[in-house]
C-alpha cells in the first residue's frame, strides 16, 4: 500500500492570535485619531490702556448686528465680502498700528459672526479690538 505523502510545505500561522492583533490595531488607530489637538484661530486683544491711547476715530469700525451685513464705518458690507473690502482699505496702511479694527457688537450679534469678522481682519493683517459697553452707577443726591 502506497502511503500518500502529504507535501505540506506551507505552514499556516497560528490564527488564534488574529483577534488580538485586530483589536490592538483598532486601539492604536483610535488613539492616534483622538490625540489630535484642537485647531483654532489665535487672537490676542490689545489691553484697554493701549486702545485708549490711540485715537479711535482713525481706525476702521465694524459693527456686528446679527444680520448678514455688518457696518464698516457705517457702510453696510456683506460679511463674506468683508475680507476683500478690508484688504483694499489696508493697501494704504502699511503699519500694523494703522490696521486696528474696532469691533462693536449689538446684543443680537452671534459668535459665528464675530469669528467671521475676526477671521477677515486677521487674514488681511489687521488687529481686532473690542469696544464694549461700560456701565457705571452714578449716585445723584
Amino acid at each position: 500500500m502506497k502511503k500518500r505523502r502529504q507535501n505540506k510545505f506551507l505552514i499556516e500561522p497560528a490564527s488564534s492570535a488574529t483577534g488580538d492583533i485586530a483589536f490592538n490595531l483598532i486601539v492604536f488607530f483610535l488613539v492616534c485619531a483622538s490625540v489630535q489637538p484642537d485647531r483654532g484661530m489665535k487672537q490676542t486683544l490689545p489691553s484697554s490702556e493701549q486702545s485708549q491711547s490711540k485715537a479711535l476715530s482713525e481706525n476702521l469700525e465694524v459693527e456686528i448686528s446679527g444680520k448678514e451685513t455688518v457696518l464698516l464705518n457705517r457702510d453696510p458690507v456683506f460679511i463674506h465680502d468683508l475680507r476683500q473690502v478690508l484688504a483694499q482699505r489696508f493697501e494704504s496702511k502699511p503699519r500694523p498700528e494703522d490696521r486696528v479694527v474696532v469691533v462693536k457688537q449689538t446684543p443680537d450679534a452671534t459668535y459665528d459672526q464675530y469669528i467671521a469678522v475676526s477671521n477677515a481682519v486677521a487674514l488681511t493683517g489687521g488687529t481686532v479690538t473690542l469696544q464694549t459697553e461700560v456701565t457705571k452707577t452714578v449716585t445723584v443726591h
Partner: protein
Amino acid sequence: MKLSRKMPRADVPNAAMGDIAFNLLIFFVILAKANDDSNLQWTPADGSNLQTATAVASVVVDKKGRLYLNGSEVGQEQLKASLERTMANAETEQQRTVHLKVHNKTRRDKYEPIIGAISEAGGVMIHVLNEEN
C-alpha cells in the same frame, strides 16, 4: 457495558487573559483625561487658516449658554480669577494659551465678557473652530 461519556468542558482561555487586561488598561488610561470636556455639547463656528496649539486651560460655552472651565461649570465672575490662578506661574506664551470653545449661535452678552476675562487674565486665546473648505 455502560460507556461513560466525558462531558466537554468549556473553559475560558487563560492564556488570553493577560492580553485582555492589558488592552482594557490602555483603553481607560487613554480615555481618562485630566480636563475632559468631550461630554459638553457645542457646535464650533467656521474659520480658515487655523493653527494647532495646545493649551493649559479650556473654556467652553455650550449650546445652553453654560460656562465651563476645564470641564467644570463656573460662573462668569469666577472665570478671570480662576484663569489667573491657573496661569500664575506661566512664563512663556504657550503656558498662557487658553482654548475658547463657544457654541456658534451664542449671543454677544454671553461670549463678550468671557473674551474680556481671558484677555484681562493675560491669556492667549485660541478660538477653536471648524476648518471651512
